[in-house]
């Protein structure tokens, strides 16, 4: 009976040929992600926007307007004019809004990347320690996390930025400090399920110290989940950054960000609505695309959560 089965199996395998090659979990996840058309489209949009932001100086060359240049011929807040190459119009100082939007996107994305990395480091560290330690430490750390989630840390960020200056590195760190809690909670869940697995047990039996287990075995295994949740944090970070910029606490002139541009536009929305259109549109599209990418990645890598 069993012999027959084996023969049949081999026959079936031979018949299937290459179709039945084994695939790793990551490959399966990528295949699942590629099947999600919305997420793939959103990824394309995000990539285009990253390229636009990265090569923002090119638009200075193409339009002939530098980010800080005040166009005296076209002075003081004119509506979009394609002949003059002011695609989004100019602000009240005669600066080209299209070029400024590209540069603002650059800063927003930079902040998003660095601040999300800060959040990643804090969240993974906190979650891993809490999950590994277990017992009372875990309970206390999770209780603190529960309470922190209900507090508007963004307001603390407002205070901190007002007091410690508007240096861009401070913006990075402070936004990172605001957005790590969900990451910590997810990582803790992962770590707890890993903690009871056999290879951790083996490492422990072999006498690896806890710090070694953390660095060698836990962190590599949660990397995938951490990166997925990082893409979910990035839109939040962009939102916080634009919020701070809107309140006049973000980056400073001559640098600009999408939030700063929207805030400038909002002040004169009745007379010069085009000042808000460009940056607002880019911010909304960016956030929408990032949200779809994040959701798609989470669905692909974590199918039980669907």
């Amino acid at each position: 009976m069993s012999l027959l089965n084996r023969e049949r199996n081999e026959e079936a395998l031979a018949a299937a040929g290459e179709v039945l090659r084994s695939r790793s979990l990551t490959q399966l996840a990528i295949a699942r992600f590629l099947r999600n058309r919305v997420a793939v489209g959103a990824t394309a949009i995000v990539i285009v926007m990253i390229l636009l932001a990265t090569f923002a100086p090119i638009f200075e060359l193409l339009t002939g307007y530098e980010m800080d240049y005040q166009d005296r011929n076209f002075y003081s807040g004119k509506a979009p004019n394609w002949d003059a190459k002011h695609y989004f119009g100019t602000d009240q100082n005669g600066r080209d809004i299209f070029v400024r939007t590209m540069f603002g996107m650059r800063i927003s994305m930079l902040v998003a990347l660095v601040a999300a990395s800060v959040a990643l480091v804090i969240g993974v560290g906190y979650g891993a320690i809490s999950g590994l330690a277990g017992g009372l430490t875990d309970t206390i750390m999770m209780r603190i996390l529960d309470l922190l989630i209900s507090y508007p840390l963004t307001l603390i960020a407002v205070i901190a930025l007002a007091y410690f200056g508007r240096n861009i590195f401070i913006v990075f760190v402070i936004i990172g400090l605001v957005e790590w809690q969900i990451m910590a909670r997810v990582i803790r869940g992962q770590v707890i399920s890993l903690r009871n697995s056999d290879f951790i047990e083996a490492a422990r039996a072999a006498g690896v110290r806890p710090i070694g287990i953390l660095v060698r075995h836990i962190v590599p295994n949660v990397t995938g989940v951490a990166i997925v949740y990082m893409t979910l944090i990035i839109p939040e970070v962009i939102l916080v950054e634009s919020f701070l910029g809107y309140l006049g606490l973000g980056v400073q002139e001559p640098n600009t960000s999408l939030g700063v541009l929207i805030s400038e536009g909002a002040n004169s929305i009745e007379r010069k609505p085009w000042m808000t259109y460009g940056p607002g549109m880019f911010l909304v599209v960016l956030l929408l695309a990032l949200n779809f990418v994040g959701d798609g990645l989470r669905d692909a890598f974590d199918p039980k959560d669907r």
Partner: protein
Amino acid sequence: MAYALQRFGQMLIIVIIALFAVFSTQRLAPGGPFDGERPPPPAILENLRAYYDMDLSMPAQFYAYLFGMAGREIEANGTAGKAHWFVVPKNAEITTLGGTTDRSTDDDLFVRRFCPWDQWLGQVLPGARAQMRENGTVFRKCGVVRGDFGLSMARRSIYVNDYVRDGLPATLKYAIPSLLFALLLGVPMGFYAAYRQNKPADFIMITIGMFGTVVPNLVMAPLLIFLFAVQLDAFFHWLFVETLEWIELARRQRTLNLIPSGKTGGVMHYVLPTLVLGTGLLGRIVRLSRAGALEALRSNYVRTARAKGLPAHVILLRHVFKPAILPVLTYMGPVTAFILTGSLVIERAFSLPGLGRQFIAAATDRDYTLLMGTTVILLLAIILLNFIVDLLYTWLDPRIRRGGGRS
């Protein structure tokens, strides 16, 4: 109840820690409230620092801020220069925010303005009445615990209590309607979407939810102002006045009055701020309640109820509502945070005289007392709402009622 109280106690501890953190970091950070472009002379600076307890150690300052005493001996004669007492002559004018003036004539004023909570507790500071009889009204700091937030540091003739009294209603009157708007509309929308899963209605609800979460309120605010306040008014003017020549309407009310300005607004002033603040919340609540309702709809007891032949609305109300509302309730803590940060945006966008604007002004001016006052109020609002949510949670989720027994 015990669970909710326990949570309340924990939150209170966190509030005190958070207050101390804000208190000490703002004082340790570089710069101070008195070093502007034209700093006061050294002697006055010394007096100011003494009045605001800034010459003490940090824990003593915090103690003084909470209880108003600082462990200093309180001199009874109330002459100027003593840090904790100062005298305003009888009948002096005190200008409050909003232009009203008070006169420092009676005991009542003293009690009402400077130890607001003593009035309720029925205890007036010992010796205060005698002081008032001799010297006019005597002002003494009584600390945050007794409801005295102290004088603002940037505008030293205004009490933080006045800022709070004027600002808090302005914040709440937009925060509460938008919360109600989001809850009363979002939960039914989420339930309906779950009930008609994968139908066009579901798709519409999901799209609304997505846009609510993605379009930030700082984009929504200028956009709505432009669309509804500027363009729509222009359109109505064109339609009624220029085309239909309905002059009577133009004379009676020139605009839709959608921009909150001045005090003569009425209901129309609530529309735009509530929409801006509410849609962000609405999106999140729709998504959460839809997810919760989907899970409840798939459960066995709902299938049983269906098999029994109960009508749909009974199933939705009796079997789905309670478990499906739980994720929404869990989210109420972050909702408070969202409303508070959102109200900073709408106060700026619509120029509303709320607390959020004082909060930002205080942070940028290094107005320590005003910043602390607004922070205290915000934290109190948060723990109060969380307490209510915990109470609701115990009511809705029997698993939390530990040790058995009702509440």
